[in-house]
């Protein structure tokens, strides 16, 4: 692209540092290159885990064994969960778009600790390799589910230790990224960019980073305790040794519930960037969005017990957790109203990123409302551990975080690569994806209410229709995913050259070249106005 006269400077993609070729990527401390390293590794694992998910669905197309035996099935849903949660969804948005765009959006040349940033990618890869190795080494794929509940996880003869270690290491990588982002945001904002002149995606990353830092160590030590129980017979969770299995659930969810907010907050941040740009209108209620991000992070830290309503925790405990769960709905709803109000009266340009962002709201709402159903003590007893729960968290995690990720990649793709994908094909892929998603997961709500348990290998004839429709949806969804991937990969080199600001965005990343130069800014910009000020077009 350097031959193209349009660009006066060498982009980060062709910049030659100390190392050449592939080493220039593997040893690069450039936040943009590290962002892409994450993107490729996460995309790879996403496809792997999505195919595992498809296999699970195909197995469930009819009652009884279809294409695999029960133990393989247990291994599949466990590894699907571990890869999706720990490798794809938790790091996902932060590590890819956070790394790539956080420094650019706050007007910095890099993150605060560039070498530490590269190190966290290596730790991430180490954890990912261990997670995959747990499939093959020793006693077979772990079959505990991604939640590693004791007592089964301390007795299962499968490869649980590998998976636990992998999760521990991935957590460490996530902590380092979190530290990096917090310090970056504190120290490297461009001159003049006060806290409340910062765009909202960095804000959401800031809230997320704090949860990463303050919650992840708890799960780290918990996983170590399970390892200690397996290896050293230190039985903190083993009733025979005086321990308490419920304590594991407390400790596990102290991290893993906030982890849900680690997933969804950056997703909200991404769509918050997209709505103003495609409505050409300042974001509605900037302050409300900032405060609700922080409120979600803060309150979300204290709701872990709503995963344990049926385990026999105390009455007051259930009361407390249920109450706080309903409280979290308030800041989440505030955000939804803000997004809709942002679009109201704007000049809406219905391009692919906005399609994904709008479907994000739709799916997130369904996921959120069913979350309230599960947060209510009485209905929870009925719905606990049914496929209703599976549908709920897929609507939040895939419909929320996943669709926001797709929205983000379609939004920032021209900036990252300097090329434009085929918008028509992207829209069609969106349609297929969106249809497949709903056909896949909506029936699970219904059979869940009717009593279909989650994680079961086999089921009664009465659930056949629901499962059958769901599997059809899975196939449509996979087709959609591959259409999208094809579009993004094929047009990476063949697409039309993208201008530096194809969507008429106003945040800092659109003020620099596409793709950005190695140091992002020739001169660190000085910020004088709040973000999201659009010039009226006459």
């Amino acid at each position: 692209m350097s031959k193209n006269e349009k660009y006066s400077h060498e982009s980060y993609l062709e910049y030659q540092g100390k190392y050449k070729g592939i080493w220039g990527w593997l040893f690069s401390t450039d936040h943009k290159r590290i962002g892409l390293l994450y993107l490729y590794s996460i995309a790879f694992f996403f496809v792997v885990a999505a195919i595992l998910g498809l296999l699970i669905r195909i197995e469930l197309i009819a009652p009884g064994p279809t294409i695999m035996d029960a133990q393989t099935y247990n291994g599949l849903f466990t590894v699907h969960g571990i890869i999706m949660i720990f490798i794809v969804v938790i790091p996902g948005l932060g590590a890819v778009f956070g790394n790539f765009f956080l420094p650019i959006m706050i007007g910095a040349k890099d993150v605060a600790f560039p070498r530490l940033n590269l190190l966290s990618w290596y730790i991430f890869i180490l954890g990912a390799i261990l997670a995959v190795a747990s499939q093959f080494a020793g006693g077979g794929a772990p079959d505990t589910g991604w939640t590693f509940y004791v007592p089964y996880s301390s007795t299962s003869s499968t490869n649980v230790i590998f998976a636990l270690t992998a999760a521990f290491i991935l957590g460490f990588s996530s902590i380092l990224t979190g530290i990096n982002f917090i310090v970056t945001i504190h120290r490297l904002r461009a001159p003049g960019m006060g806290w409340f002149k910062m765009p909202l995606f960095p804000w959401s990353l800031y809230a997320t980073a704090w949860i990463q830092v303050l919650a992840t160590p708890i799960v780290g030590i918990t996983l170590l305790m399970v390892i200690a129980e397996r290896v050293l017979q230190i039985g903190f969770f083993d009733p025979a040794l005086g321990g308490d299995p419920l304590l594991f659930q407390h400790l596990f969810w102290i991290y893993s519930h906030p982890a849900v907010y680690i997933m969804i907050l950056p997703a909200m941040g991404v769509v918050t960037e997209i709505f103003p740009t495609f409505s050409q209108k300042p974001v509605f209620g900037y302050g409300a969005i900032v405060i609700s991000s922080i409120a979600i992070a803060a309150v979300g830290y204290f709701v872990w017990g709503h995963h344990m309503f049926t385990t026999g925790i105390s009455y007051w405990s259930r009361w407390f957790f249920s109450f706080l769960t309903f409280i979290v709905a308030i800041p989440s709803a505030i955000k939804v109203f803000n997004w809709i109000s942002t679009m109201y009266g704007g000049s809406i340009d219905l391009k692919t990123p906005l399609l994904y962002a709008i479907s994000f709201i739709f799916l997130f709402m369904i996921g959120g409302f069913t979350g309230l159903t599960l947060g209510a003590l009485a209905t929870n007893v009925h719905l606990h551990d049914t496929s209703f729960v599976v549908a709920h968290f897929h609507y939040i995690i895939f419909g929320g975080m996943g669709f926001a990720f797709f929205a983000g990649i379609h939004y920032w793709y021209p900036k990252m690569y300097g090329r434009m994908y085929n918008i028509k094909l992207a829209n069609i892929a969106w349609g297929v994806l969106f249809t497949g998603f709903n056909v896949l997961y909506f029936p699970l709500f219904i059979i869940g209410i009717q009593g279909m348990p989650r994680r079961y290998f086999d089921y009664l004839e009465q659930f056949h229709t629901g499962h059958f429709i769901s599997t059809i949806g899975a196939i449509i969804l996979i087709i959609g995913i591959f259409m999208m991937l094809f579009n993004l990969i094929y047009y990476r080199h063949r697409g039309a050259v993208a201008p530096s600001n194809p969507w008429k965005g106003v945040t800092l990343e659109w003020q620099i070249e596409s793709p950005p130069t190695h140091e992002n800014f020739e001169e660190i910009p000085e910020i004088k106005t709040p973000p999201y000020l659009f010039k009226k077009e006459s």
Partner: protein
Amino acid sequence: MENKTHISSYESHGRVLISLLLLTMLSVLVTWMEFGVFTIAVALTVASVKAFIVLTWFMHLKFESNFIRWMVAGVFVLFTLVLIITFIDYFFR
């Protein structure tokens, strides 16, 4: 480094150490005196005072930015909250 960096004197470090050693003695003595159920409360209070001293002088919090000070305080508050909320379960079960 900016010139407002505070350099603690050797003597002040010595004084901090002496107070910490005295507190250690106190907590050992307290356990001998058998306060019954309050023993643990007293021991933890003394430990918290010691922790406060280490944080303030040895770890230089006294001379750090407000942000770091508030965050350290916040972390301890957060942990206490987690502890209390977990015990809402264990106390009323």
